[in-house]
């Protein structure tokens, strides 16, 4: 098999007595949109955190773009092309929307030991930031203070910041968390448009979105992978229905 | 040999005294997440109250009991008036607000008791030496301090590990919101915990008074040590505070006694006499820095925060 872009093998993580990640193995080929689903407490966010580097796995390996990144710090993974969005909005609330994205651009535009020139006048940074904002439809809010945005706009900003660093792969942790039906539909459109350009690992609860977007799905329950495969196969899987989708799942 | 035993006991006594101070600090810190720089002021008040009440009543014990009660009341008043508004805020706010309280209390004490400080004598019935080992005598008063603080430590252990309130304290140290959600009167609990911390600080202050000092600003000096202990031991952990306090007490006392000599043997008289005083004082901070580099959460980090 061709070397997948992301390859996770035997990942384990314990917190005291609790096993959050239990021997998780799966892979994501280049260009795929791979969804991770499972009930609350299944360890989905913990898994993402280990992939992006906020947490270090106890055992197991993570390979990305051919290199072992298991012990690589989070900031360096970003430079390798792995970008993450957060389930609980994590922005620079006291800065402007444009400043937020510009920082994400700046991180990938050489070093920041520049002490004299005004960073807000660097056209390279500002333009790339505006482009990322336009791409998610927030261009008109560029000058607003981030704290003043609606929740839906925050989720879009999360996405813009992940995109700003021109990553190869996106780790999206519940991008639709807390969105109403209209906003959710728009987010699904947005994600669909990103599908072929980026490899995406998507954690989501919204089953309609998942089955509409995903090429393959991994199901996580109590930190363990109980199923892995194409959407139809997952829908039909008895174990999955028991654990998560429910008897009358009709998506 | 005698000197060694004596300094060991001094180290123990100092460590236990520091534990009283640090226990209150770590409790308030661990449960209310409150950085209280004014803790040293309560220590100072305990000493001043004791000096005054002992003079009024003519009895050290009576004076001590009244002083602890007074410090407890002041502590609870401070909690209700000032501390309540700081809960949940940035640590910077705590630091600034309680720093302001230090200024306030220093001036208040100056207003009430004058700038000159006070003295408190060792009670006559403890003013003798006890032969703890054949040929080795140790001041009875210092032994009394050791006994009292060990008793308080035991009481704290029982309180925290075996009573309902203790359970709430331990739960609060792990997860504040949950305790509130359980319907416990959080406000009252916090006031009581703060009061307990204040009483412990006051007790420490009054007990050291006959040996060391009763003066304005005495809190600022010892507060740092108490914080160092809290940090080394792990915030919120009384057990950690106990171990760290003894460690700090020993190292500081033994260090000041024997380090200059040790340094002299290593570096020669001249070099040692210049470096020793400074280095002895710095030992504690070097210890803390070293521990934090290896274990940034302290020796016994409490709960999940």
């Amino acid at each position: 098999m061709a070397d997948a872009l992301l390859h996770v093998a035997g990942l384990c993580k314990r917190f005291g007595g609790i096993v959050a990640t239990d021997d998780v193995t799966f892979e994501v080929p280049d260009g795929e949109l791979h969804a991770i689903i499972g009930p609350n407490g299944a360890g989905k966010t913990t898994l993402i955190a280990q992939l992006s580097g906020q947490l270090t796995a106890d055992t197991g390996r993570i390979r990305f773009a051919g290199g072992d990144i298991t012990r690589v710090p989070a900031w360096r993974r970003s430079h390798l092309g792995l970008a993450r969005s957060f389930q609980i909005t994590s922005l620079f609330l006291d800065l402007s929307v444009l400043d937020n994205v510009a920082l994400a651009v700046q991180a990938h535009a050489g070093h920041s030991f520049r002490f004299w020139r005004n960073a807000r006048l660097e056209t390279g940074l500002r333009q790339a930031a505006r482009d990322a904002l336009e791409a998610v439809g927030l261009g008109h809010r560029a000058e607003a203070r981030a704290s003043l945005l609606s929740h839906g706009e925050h989720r879009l900003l999360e996405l813009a910041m992940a995109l700003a660093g021109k990553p190869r792969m996106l780790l999206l942790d519940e991008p639709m968390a807390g969105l109403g039906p209209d906003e959710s539909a728009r987010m699904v459109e947005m994600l669909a448009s990103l599908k072929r350009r980026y490899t995406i690992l998507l954690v989501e609860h919204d089953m309609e979105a998942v089955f509409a977007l995903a090429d393959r799905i991994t199901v996580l329950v109590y930190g363990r992978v109980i199923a892995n495969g194409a959407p139809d196969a997952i829908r039909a899987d008895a174990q999955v229905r028991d654990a998560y989708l429910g008897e009358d799942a009709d998506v | 040999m005698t000197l060694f035993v004596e300094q060991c006991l001094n180290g123990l006594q100092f460590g236990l005294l520091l534990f009283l101070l640090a226990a209150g600090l770590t409790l308030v810190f661990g449960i209310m997440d409150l950085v209280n720089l004014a803790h040293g002021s309560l220590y100072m008040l305990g000493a001043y109250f004791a000096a005054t009440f002992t003079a009024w009543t003519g009895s050290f014990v009576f004076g001590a009991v009244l002083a602890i009660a007074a410090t407890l009341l002041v502590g609870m008043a401070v909690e209700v008036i000032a501390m309540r508004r700081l809960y949940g805020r940035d640590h910077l706010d705590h630091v600034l607000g309680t720093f302001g309280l230090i200024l306030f209390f220093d001036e208040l004490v100056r207003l009430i008791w004058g700038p000159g400080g006070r003295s408190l004598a060792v009670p006559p019935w403890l003013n003798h030496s006890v032969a703890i080992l054949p040929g080795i005598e140790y001041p009875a008063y210092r032994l009394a301090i050791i006994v009292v603080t060990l008793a308080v430590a035991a009481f704290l252990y029982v309180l925290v590990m075996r009573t309902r309130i203790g359970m709430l304290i331990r739960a609060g140290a792990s997860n504040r919101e949950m305790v509130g959600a359980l319907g416990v009167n959080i406000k009252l609990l916090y006031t009581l915990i703060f009061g307990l911390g204040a009483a412990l600080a006051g007790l420490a202050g009054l007990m050291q008074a006959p040996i060391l000092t009763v003066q304005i600003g005495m809190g600022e000096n010892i507060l740092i040590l108490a914080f160092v202990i809290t940090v080394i031991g792990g915030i919120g952990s009384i057990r950690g505070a106990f171990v760290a306090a003894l460690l700090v007490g020993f190292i500081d006392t033994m260090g000041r006694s024997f380090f200059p000599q040790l340094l002299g043997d290593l570096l020669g008289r001249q070099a040692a006499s210049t470096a020793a005083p400074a280095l002895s004082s710095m030992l504690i901070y070097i210890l803390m820095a070293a521990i934090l580099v290896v274990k940034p959460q302290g020796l016994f980090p409490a709960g999940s925060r």
Partner: protein
Amino acid sequence: MTGALTLRNLTIAALVLVLALLPLYVALTGDRFMLTLFTRIVILAMAAVSLNLILGYAGLMSFGHAAYLGIGGYTVAILCFEGVPSAFVQWPAALATSALFALIVGALSLRTRGVYFIMITLAFAQMAYYLASGTARYGGDDGLSLESRSGFAGLINLSNKTTFYYVCLVLLFASIVLVWRLTNSRFGMVLQGVRSNEARMRAIGFPTFRYKLAGFVIAGTMCGLAGALIANHTDFVSPAMMFWTRSGDLIVMVVLGGMGTLFGPVFGALALLFLEQFLPAAISAVVHPFDPASAARAGEFWQIVLGPLLLVVVLFARGGIDGLLGALSDRIQRARKGGHG
């Protein structure tokens, strides 16, 4: 569009003017005390500006910043004591020792967070305090006097109080300009991002430690220069300069003046030192009509007011003086707009 003529900006302009023209006032009135007081204010304002860089902009609560005043000061004093009175050696040395101390302290402390960071910076400052206190050769607890002020080979005479004042003032303005450029640069954006959300900064690809350390060293070095100035000002250094409560005073100045603003630290230093100087007299004046006998004494206890005042500022006026000016400016602007509407 009202542009830059806001109350806040006008106040800042007035402040700059007052500071620049002070020696003229002193020459006219002969009030030399004001010159001494304002020199002290300007030097401490510079120290506060340096602390504001890491506290206000980067969110690093260092409780050991006064140590750099001591380190810079002692470097100058010790070199003077050892027969090196030249500023061309003393001042770069003061910068170098401060930078080195900041590098070591920062490298060890910045790995911790929150209150642990506060404690460890405080501990290092106490170490510096005890080092100075325990070194008999340089005066120990009694401190060390300077035989002469730093010599600039006759080019600048620091013994002339007016000249010295202007040297300090120029350095204060230079440090403000430096902080202004720094905070708007790429480097400054990183610091602000760290203050806002360090975890996100790391997630988007910034190795935050090295930037925090750089900021820490810059701030410490700047404060070391202020220390060299203060040694010259008082012709004396002592360990007490570095005691942790002095670091507390610096933090108070930064917060009182308005954290994360350019001129906030200057307002803060001015406010604190003015309060220190004039609050006793003000209190005496207030008490006098009621009880003339104890009026004088009453002034002594000014810190009883200062303490709770700090608490009030923390609780209700978090933006400090700069914040209040900003709020007032906004009110005035809105009132104007409403009036013309």
